[in-house]
């Protein structure tokens, strides 16, 4: 079959397509052809494809309505597999060879739809459906959801990794111009000529906007000529960046805007050579919004039948793509400008059945021009209903009263296959609205115009309700000049001489057309095509008492589609206003928010995917751990060895073996991730004294002290050991996860409350490798690698630290213990970490040294009742709750952080949750962490909660399970039995015991 035969609506000449480059594509599995320069929509229309999707709720056949971002019906999914993209508008998809597209909404296919057979479906989903369903019984929603998801569909996300690359670029400019129609181009040119740095972006395939299909002359030459010359001049400036295929989708604070550039989407679906899409994050000094206007359809019965299109879109298809999408046209309008569509259709050689004009006495130039061409014009008439199902077959046309409110005679049928509809134009106020500017209703243009600017921006041209080319050029030039001047450049104005424009007469404010039947009984009069919101639905919402436009929006779901109601919202507001007997200005509009059009996750993520999404931190010993077969766990960004399984061991086996090795012989832990903050200055001790609960003023060099930090609310915030390294010099250890937060905490108090204290903080976490050697044989291991520290228990005591040399490396050795065993924490500069670690392993071999991970560390500390901040505490517990009264000094003269709060009535009351141990009656039962605790086994539900399990393990050393828990008044309830009802129905009984399960006297660490 030749191309001419398949493209039955393609005109023989004209358009901006390249007829020498035929392209083949498929739509819903069927093969078609088009030309380079087509969009998917124009190619489908050229091929006479009427039905492109099914509607969301009523499953009605839908066709292409528009030629731009506002398209509600032709929503497609491109490609398949990894690179597939859902929810694209066919009107904005550039055609390429091999393109493969499917309708996103149309199950099981667009021409035969099962859901339509369930005609009850529509009746099941009245306005307020979502509200009523979500507020109703849960099962009802699950029933509906099945049908909605399957039937309506909103595209399918790819199930495998996206193979493409996405880029991010941060940009700065003097003037960002949004939109490259006449106003935008004039603005960009004026600014560029001053030397300003300019970015101009336009969402379409080529720059030009309305100039791409315009009959006017600019400075004596055709508009297309001026366009070519202007683009050539702009391209010469090194200071100008021109971005076609680039949608400015968000306008944020302080003139920060985001642009999604489609770099290769017009060439192929995937791209292995460069980025597929690129996000530009632009900080602009001045912004010119020249983003145009979107035509508003008129609302009448069955106005969604394929073949009903926006008038401007019909002109675009004829002029830019050489496609006349039908044989016989009825143009239905309330304004002069739309008459151009009848003229274009007529010029393409096809029949104009009639122009139906709601106005009784239109007099504009275009009206005269149409009449002069012999086009039949029915004034004071309206299309009130469309005939046809999968394609327009005709229109019911009736005489209309002058105010448009009622019919004044019998309707008669006129045959046609296309109805072009125009109810006027809506300026694209979306980006301006993103900034918080409230759109203002303007009776003159019968539309909302951008509200008062809150940022350095101005709207010009159609975006500001200015529709003639001469004014657009003038406004654009003036805005470009002003923006450049505001950036400190000097500029001169340019004036353009535009000829060939036709003056437009006054339009009529008309939105919903009357029907012979009342709105509630008339065939569906669609307002929001994507979500099937009808005029009757909006009136129902008003009758049910909804008066705020934001509420009506949520009640009817108007504007909730992926098109954000670009086509229907204003009509919906007008219908609501009339029903409420108020003006549109009083009714107001909803607020538009980013994104202007859907943006892919790939574009937003840019290169921040995979391992670049969140960087991982490794200690210097990482490769040794990997070679030793460690399993890792994430602690913040750190990768920490979790346990070291030997062949055949599962986690429980490995952890049990590691625990016993530490208790009976010696173990070694990589503790390098512990936060370390170096603190220096003459007031360092005073500062520590203020932030810790216990006393630090008298901590001598060579000594360490465990401390707890509280928030000002008295709740435990972090804990750790601080060592005095020398006069005015300390090293603070924090928890691994708390390191950054603690540094912030120290800095904010120092800088904002106590700047007079001379103290300095430096994070040194990554400077050191810390190897913890712990167990009864620890001293023997250290003795083999360190000869310059007196390791005798009386010379180097528990909670002391010493400078020395370990395996030839300068080291700090701390006698601090998180296991309850004799421990040495060996700290060496990180570059020597691996070396020293290996020497310690070597030295420990004869004593059975065993590397262990975080899981064993947790078990061992739980056996000792040592808390982990963030696991056994949750920001609501004081040191007293943790049975740690000993760590709170009452003698300090300074009211340390959190001290006052410990005296608040809530902190001193009885029955606060307190840290205790739990022993299950069956020693093999290991309670789940988080299990709730109640007093009675068979307490009626809801039972009074007594607390919860915070830590729970099987202890190989004690040969039974152990748990830590917080229990109301727990410290006074030792010996009592409590119960943990579990999700699986079991109830486990446990006895409240001391939180220290092993070596309560602390003798083992003190040798």
């Amino acid at each position, binding site marked *: 079959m030749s191309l001419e035969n398949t493209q039955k609506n393609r005109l023989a000449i004209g358009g901006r397509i390249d007829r020498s480059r035929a392209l083949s594509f498929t739509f819903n599995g069927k093969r078609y052809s088009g030309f380079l320069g087509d969009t998917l929509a124009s190619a489908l229309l050229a091929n006479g494809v009427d039905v492109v999707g099914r509607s969301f709720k009523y499953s009605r056949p839908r066709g292409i309505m528009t030629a731009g971002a506002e398209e509600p019906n032709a929503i497609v999914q491109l490609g398949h597999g990894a690179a597939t993209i859902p929810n694209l508008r066919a009107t904005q998809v550039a055609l390429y060879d091999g393109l493969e597209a499917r309708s996103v909404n149309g199950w099981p296919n667009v021409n035969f739809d099962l859901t339509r057979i369930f005609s009850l479906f529509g009746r099941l989903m009245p306005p307020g459906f979502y509200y009523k369903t979500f507020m109703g019984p849960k099962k009802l929603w699950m029933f509906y959801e099945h049908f909605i998801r399957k039937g309506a569909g909103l595209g399918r996300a790819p199930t495998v990794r996206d193979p493409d690359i996405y880029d991010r670029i941060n940009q700065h400019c003097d003037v960002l111009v949004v939109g490259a129609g006449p106003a935008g181009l004039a603005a960009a040119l004026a600014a560029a000529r001053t030397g300003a740095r300019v970015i101009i972006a336009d969402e379409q395939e080529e720059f030009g906007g309305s100039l791409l299909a315009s009959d006017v002359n600019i400075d004596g030459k055709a508009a297309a000529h001026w366009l070519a010359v202007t683009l050539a001049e702009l391209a010469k400036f090194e200071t100008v960046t021109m971005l076609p295929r680039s949608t400015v989708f968000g306008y944020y604070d302080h003139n920060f805007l985001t642009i999604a550039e489609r770099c290769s989407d017009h060439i192929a679906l995937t791209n292995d050579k460069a980025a597929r899409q690129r996000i530009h994050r632009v900080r602009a000094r001045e912004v010119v919004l020249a983003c145009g206007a979107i035509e508003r359809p008129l609302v009448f019965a069955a106005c969604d039948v394929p073949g009903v299109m926006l008038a401007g879109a019909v002109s675009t298809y004829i002029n830019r793509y050489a496609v006349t999408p039908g044989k016989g046209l009825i143009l239905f309008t309330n304004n002069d400008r739309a008459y151009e569509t009848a003229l274009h259709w007529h010029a393409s050689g096809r029949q104009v059945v009639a122009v139906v004009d709601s106005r009784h006495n239109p007099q504009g130039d275009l009206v005269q021009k149409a009449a002069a061409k012999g086009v039949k014009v029915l004034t004071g008439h309206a299309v009130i209903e469309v005939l046809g199902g999968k394609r327009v077959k005709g229109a019911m046309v009736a005489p209309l009263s002058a105010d448009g409110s009622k019919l004044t005679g019998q309707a008669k049928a006129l045959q046609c296959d296309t109805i072009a509809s125009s109810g006027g134009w809506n300026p694209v106020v979306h980006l301006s609205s993103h900034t918080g500017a409230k759109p203002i209703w303007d009776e003159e243009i019968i539309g909302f115009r951008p509200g008062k600017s809150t940022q350095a921006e101005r709207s010009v041209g159609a975006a500001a309700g200015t529709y003639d080319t001469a004014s657009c050029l003038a406004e654009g030039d003036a805005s470009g000049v002003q923006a450049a001047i505001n950036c400190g450049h000097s500029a001169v104005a340019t004036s353009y001489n535009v000829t060939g424009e036709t003056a437009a007469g006054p339009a009529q404010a008309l939105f919903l057309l009357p029907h012979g039947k009342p709105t509630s009984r008339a065939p569906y009069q669609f307002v929001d095509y994507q979500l099937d919101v009808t005029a009757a639905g909006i009136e129902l919402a008003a009758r049910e008492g909804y008066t705020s436009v934001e509420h009506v929006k949520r009640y009817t779901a108007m504007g909730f589609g992926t098109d954000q109601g670009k086509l229907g919202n204003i009509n919906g507001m007008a219908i609501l206003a009339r029903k409420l007997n108020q003006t549109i200005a009083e009714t107001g509009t909803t607020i538009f928010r980013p994104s202007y059009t859907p943006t892919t996750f790939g574009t937003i993520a840019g290169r921040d995917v995979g391992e670049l999404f969140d960087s991982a931190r490794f200690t210097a010993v990482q490769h040794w751990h990997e070679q030793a077969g460690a399993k890792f766990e994430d602690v913040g960004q750190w990768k920490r060895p979790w346990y070291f399984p030997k062949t055949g061991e599962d986690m429980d086996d490995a952890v049990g073996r590691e625990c016993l090795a530490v208790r009976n012989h010696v173990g070694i832990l990589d503790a390098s991730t512990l936060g370390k903050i170096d603190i220096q200055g003459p007031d360092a001790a005073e500062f520590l004294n203020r932030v810790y609960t216990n006393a630090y003023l008298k901590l001598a060099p060579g000594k360490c002290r465990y401390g707890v930090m509280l928030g000002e609310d008295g709740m435990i915030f972090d804990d750790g050991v601080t060592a005095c390294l020398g006069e005015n010099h300390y090293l603070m250890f924090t928890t691994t996860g708390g390191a950054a937060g603690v540094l912030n905490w120290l800095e904010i108090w120092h800088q904002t409350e106590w*700047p007079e204290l001379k103290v300095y903080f430096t994070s040194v976490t990554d400077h050191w490798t810390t190897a913890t050697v712990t167990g009864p044989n620890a001293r023997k291991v250290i003795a083999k690698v360190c000869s310059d520290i007196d390791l005798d228990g009386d010379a180097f005591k528990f909670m002391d630290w010493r400078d020395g040399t370990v395996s030839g490396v300068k080291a700090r050795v701390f006698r601090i213990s998180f296991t309850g065993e004799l421990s040495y924490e060996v700290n060496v500069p990180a570059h020597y970490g691996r070396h020293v670690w290996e020497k310690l392993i070597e030295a420990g071999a004869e004593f059975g040294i065993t590397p262990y991970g975080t899981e064993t560390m947790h078990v061992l500390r739980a056996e000792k009742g040592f808390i982990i901040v963030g696991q056994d505490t949750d920001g609501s517990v004081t040191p007293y709750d943790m049975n740690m009264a000993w760590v709170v000094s009452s003698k300090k003269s300074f009211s340390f952080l959190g001290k006052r709060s410990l005296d608040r009535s809530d902190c001193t009351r009885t029955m606060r949750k307190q840290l205790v141990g739990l022993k299950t009656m069956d020693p093999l039962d290991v309670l789940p962490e988080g299990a709730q605790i109640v007093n009675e086994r068979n307490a009626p539900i809801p039972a009074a909660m007594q607390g919860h399990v915070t830590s729970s393990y099987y202890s190989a050393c004690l040969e039974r399970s152990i748990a830590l828990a917080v229990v109301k008044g727990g410290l006074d309830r030792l010996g009592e039995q409590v119960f943990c009802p579990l999700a699986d129905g079991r109830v486990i009984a446990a006895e409240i015991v001391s939180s220290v399960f092993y070596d309560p006297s602390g003798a083992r660490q003190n040798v």
Partner: protein
Amino acid sequence: MLKIHCPYCDEQREEEEFSYSGEAHISRPLDPGALSDADWADYLFFRKNTRGWHHEMWQHSAGCRRYFNVTRHTVTYEIFESYPMGTTPKALPKGDAR
């Protein structure tokens, strides 16, 4: 995304480099022990939640790590000034500046 001036670096930088730190000019009572529970709670928990011009603390956390104050409009997000800790803000602009 805000554009914030760090008075120490004396540069306009992106919000991503900064951390918000709440209402400014709340001094820690010199003798907390002398305060009633209610007064202490007022210092601890209650903030103005201003609609309009707001003095607030920011930290240049990915820069010089210094804390400073910003006068920002909580409706328009316009920033009137940044000023170092321990200094006094300028008189507030009347209403919304724009």
